[in-house]
C-alpha cells in the first residue's frame, strides 16, 4: 500500500581507479614479487578494481619503511605533533565521509544507511579519540614514561573494513608506533582510499603502510622478523595459528576473534525495545559481526510473545541494494561466506531445528541470504555452537537466571552478551556471571571509541578502544 520508491545513493562521489598498487613508504608502488587480484561488488558481482597482492619482498619493503619511519621520524616526534597528524586524519575522514561510505558499501555490500550512520562516524571519532591520547600518554595509567613498541603488523577482516582499520591504526600511531596493515582480500578499497588520506594529511612517509593481499600476505607480514607487535581481528582458527607462529618471539599480540553471543531476554523486559535489540543484534551488517547476538535466550514464559513480535518485525526488514538509502540488510560479503552460511543453516534444518524467514525477494545477481531464525534449537546443535557470521539467529529458551547464565557461558567464545530486563539489580548480577568482554544491557551492538572492546576465552585477548586500548601498543 505504501511502497517506498528506490532511493539510491549516488556512486559518482567515488572516483575508482582501474587498479591499485601497494602503499609503501608514502607512495603507491607496484608489487615486486606479488601478483594482483580483483575486488568485486558483492551485490552485483561486478569488478570494482584490480588490486596488488603483496609478496614476501613487498612485505620486507613495507616493514623496512615502517622501521625507518619509527626510528627517524615518528618515534622521536613529540606527542603533541603526532596528535596533530591524527586530528588532521580525523578531520579529513569527516570531510570525505560520504565518499568513504559509498565506497565501503560498494566493496563490502553493507547498506549505505549503516556505512553512513554507523561506520564512518565511528571511524572519525576513533581517530579523534586517540589523537587526544598522543600527547597525554603519561596520564594513561601505564607508568610515568610509557614507550611505544615499534613496528606493528595489523591484519583486519572484511566485515567493517574501515572501522577495523581505525581501531588498529589510531591507537598504534597515537602511542608512537608505525604500522603495516593488511586489509581483507575482499574489501581492500577503503584502506587504499585511507592511504590517500594519509598523503593528503602529509603524514610522514612510512608511518602507515598498506599491503593488500590474501592469507599468504598476512602470514608473511605477521611472521616477519622485523615486526614488534601483531594485532589481528578475524577468525579464531587464524588467531590460534598466529599465536602459535609468534611463540618464542618478542612480538606482543592482541587478538579479536569470533563470538557466539547470547542475547538474553527476561519476562520483564521492555519487549518492543528488546525485539529491536534482537534484530539489531543479529541482522546489523548482515550478521557479519563478531559480537553479533547470534543466540537468543528467551525466558520460556514470554517466548511465544517475543517470537511473534520478532517475526513481525523481521517482515519489515528491507533486503537489497546496499546503496539504496532504505535498505536494512545488504549483500553477503563473498561467495565463500554465503556458502558457509548456507552450509550451517542446512545443518540446522537437518538437526531438527525449525527454520523461518520472512517472505523477501532477493536480487538475481550477487550474494544474498534472507534473514533467518531457527527455533527449537538446543545447545548441542551446530547452529548453537559455531559462529555462522551471517543473518541467522538461533533461538533457545530458559527458565531461571542461573540457567540463562549457564547456557550463555556454555561456549568456547566470550566476546559479548546482551541482557534485557527492567530490573537493574538483575542486570548487574547477570553481568557479574557472564564470561564475556562486553555486556550490553537493554541495548546491543553499541560501540564508542572510549569504550574498551574485546573477548574472553577463545574470542581473543587484549582490548581495543578506550584507555585500555593503548596498552596493546605501549611497552608496559
Amino acid at each position, binding site marked *: 500500500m505504501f511502497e517506498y520508491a528506490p532511493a539510491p545513493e549516488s556512486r559518482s562521489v567515488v572516483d575508482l581507479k582501474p587498479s591499485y598498487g601497494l602503499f609503501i613508504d608514502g607512495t603507491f608502488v607496484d608489487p615486486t614479487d606479488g601478483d594482483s587480484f580483483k575486488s568485486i561488488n558483492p551485490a552485483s558481482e561486478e569488478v570494482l578494481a584490480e588490486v596488488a597482492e603483496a609478496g614476501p619482498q613487498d612485505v620486507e619493503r613495507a616493514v623496512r619503511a615502517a622501521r625507518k619511519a619509527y626510528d627517524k621520524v615518528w618515534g622521536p616526534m613529540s606527542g603533541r605533533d603526532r596528535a596533530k597528524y591524527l586530528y588532521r586524519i580525523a578531520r579529513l575522514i569527516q570531510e570525505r565521509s560520504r565518499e568513504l561510505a559509498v565506497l565501503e558499501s560498494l566493496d563490502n555490500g553493507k547498506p549505505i544507511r549503516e556505512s553512513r550512520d554507523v561506520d564512518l562516524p565511528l571511524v572519525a571519532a576513533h581517530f579523534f579519540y586517540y589523537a587526544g591520547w598522543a600527547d597525554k600518554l603519561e596520564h594513561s595509567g601505564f607508568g610515568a614514561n610509557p614507550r611505544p613498541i615499534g613496528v606493528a603488523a595489523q591484519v583486519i577482516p572484511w566485515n567493517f573494513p574501515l572501522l577495523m582499520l581505525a581501531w588498529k591504526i589510531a591507537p598504534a600511531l597515537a602511542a608512537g608506533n608505525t604500522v603495516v596493515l593488511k586489509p581483507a582480500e575482499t574489501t581492500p578499497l577503503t584502506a587504499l582510499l585511507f592511504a590517500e588520506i594519509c598523503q593528503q594529511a602529509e603524514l610522514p612517509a612510512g608511518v602507515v603502510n598498506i599491503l593488500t593481499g590474501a592469507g599468504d600476505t598476512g602470514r608473511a607480514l605477521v611472521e616477519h622478523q622485523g615486526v614488534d607487535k601483531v594485532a589481528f581481528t578475524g577468525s579464531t582458527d587464524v588467531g590460534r595459528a598466529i599465536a602459535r607462529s609468534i611463540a618464542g618471539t618478542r612480538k606482543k599480540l592482541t587478538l579479536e576473534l569470533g563470538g557466539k553471543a547470547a542475547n538474553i531476554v527476561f519476562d520483564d523486559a521492555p519487549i518492543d525495545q528488546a525485539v529491536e535489540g534482537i534484530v539489531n543484534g543479529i541482522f546489523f551488517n548482515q550478521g557479519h559481526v563478531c559480537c553479533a547476538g547470534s543466540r537468543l535466550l528467551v525466558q520460556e514464559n514470554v517466548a511465544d510473545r517475543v517470537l511473534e513480535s520478532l517475526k513481525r518485525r523481521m517482515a519489515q526488514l528491507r533486503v537489497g541494494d546496499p546503496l539504496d538509502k532504505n535498505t536494512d540488510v545488504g549483500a553477503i560479503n563473498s561467495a565463500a561466506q554465503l556458502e558457509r552460511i548456507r552450509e550451517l543453516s542446512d545443518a540446522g534444518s537437518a538437526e531438527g531445528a525449525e527454520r523461518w524467514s520472512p517472505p523477501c525477494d532477493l536480487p538475481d545477481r550477487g550474494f544474498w541470504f534472507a534473514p533467518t531464525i531457527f527455533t527449537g534449537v538446543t545447545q548441542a546443535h551446530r547452529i548453537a555452537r559455531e559462529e555462522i557470521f551471517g543473518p541467522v539467529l538461533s533461538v533457545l529458551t530458559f527458565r531461571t537466571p542461573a540457567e540463562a547464565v549457564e547456557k550463555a557461558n556454555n561456549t568456547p567464545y566470550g566476546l559479548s552478551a546482551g541482557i534485557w530486563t527492567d530490573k537493574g539489580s538483575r542486570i548487574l548480577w547477570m553481568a557479574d556471571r557472564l564470561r564475556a568482554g562486553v555486556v550490553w544491557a*537493554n541495548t546491543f551492538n553499541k560501540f564508542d571509541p572510549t569504550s574498551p572492546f574485546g573477548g574472553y576465552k577463545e574470542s581473543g585477548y587484549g582490548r581495543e578502544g578506550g584507555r585500555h586500548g593503548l596498552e596493546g601498543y605501549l611497552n608496559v
Partner: protein
Amino acid sequence: MTATTTSARSELSELGRSETALRTFLHGLPGVDQVGAEQRAAQLGTRSIKTTAKAQAIDLAIRMVDLTTLEGADTPGKVRALAAKAIRPDPADPSCPHVGAVCVYPAMVPYVAEVLRGSGVHLASVATAFPSGQAPLEIKLADTRAAVAAGADEIDMVINRGAFLSGRYKEVYDEIVATKEASGDAHLKVILETGELATYDNVRRASWLAMLAGGDFIKTSTGKVPIAATMPVSLVMLEAVRDFREATGRQVGVKPAGGIKTTKDAIKYLVMVNETVGPDWLDPDWFRFGASSLLNDLLMQRTKLTTGTYSGPDYFTLD
C-alpha cells in the same frame, strides 16, 4: 474474531470495574525503554521517501489532516473559510483530495457544519472543557452533548491527567466511558496530553486505559502545552493500538497532534505507521494528523511534485 480474542475481550472489559484490577493490569504492561524507543523512532525518521512514493504519501497525508483552529479569537467567518479549504485544499487543482476533518471548539461547530454538509469531510469538536479538562464531569458531558447536537461527528476529549498521574485510574476510565456514551454515534478521540505524562510507561498505560474504556482513537496532545506530539510518543501509542487489536480484535486509531508542521515530518509519521502497525492503519479512518500549518506545506510540496517548481506561502490561502 477468534475464540481467544473474544474471551480476552470480555476479560479486559471486566477490568474497569475495579481500581485494583485496572492498576494491576496497567502496571503489568511491558515497560518502555526510553533510549531504545527514541532510537527506533529516530531510525524510522531516516527513511528516504522520494518521487512516486512521496506523491502517494502527500495525498494520503492531506486526507489524514484534521485541519484545526482552536483559538479564543476564532470567528464564524474564519472557521467557515477553514471548512471551505478543508473541502478543496488547492482551488487550482481539483485532483487534490479533501482533508480528513475540521477540528474546532464546540461554539464554532454550527458554522462549520453548514459548510461541510455532504462533503465527506468529518467535523471534529474538542469537548470536555478542553484543553485542561478542569471542570465538573456534568459540565464536560454537557459540553460533549452540545457539540454532537450541533453537528460534530467526532469528539476530541481530554483525559483527567491529575487523576491519571495520582493513580486514580478508575476515575479516568469512568469519565471516558461516560463521555463515550454522551458522544452517541460520534467517534471519540481521547487526548492523553502526553506532554504532561512524563514517561513513556505512562503513555503506554494511558493508551490502554483509553482503549479499554472504549475510545475510538487515541490522540497525543491538545497543542496547548509546550510538548506536543513527538515521534517516540506516537511510536509507543502505535505499539499500544497494535497490541490492543491483537488482544481484543478491536482496531483503534491514532492521532498525533501539535508540532507536525512540514511534509517531511508527516512522511516520517507515515513511515512509522507503515512499519509499526502496517497498512491497516494507513487510512484516514485510523490515522490523523492534528495540525494547522501542515496542510499548506503539504500543498506546496504537492505543487512542486506536479509542476517541478517550488511554490511559496503567498500562493496558498492562510488559515
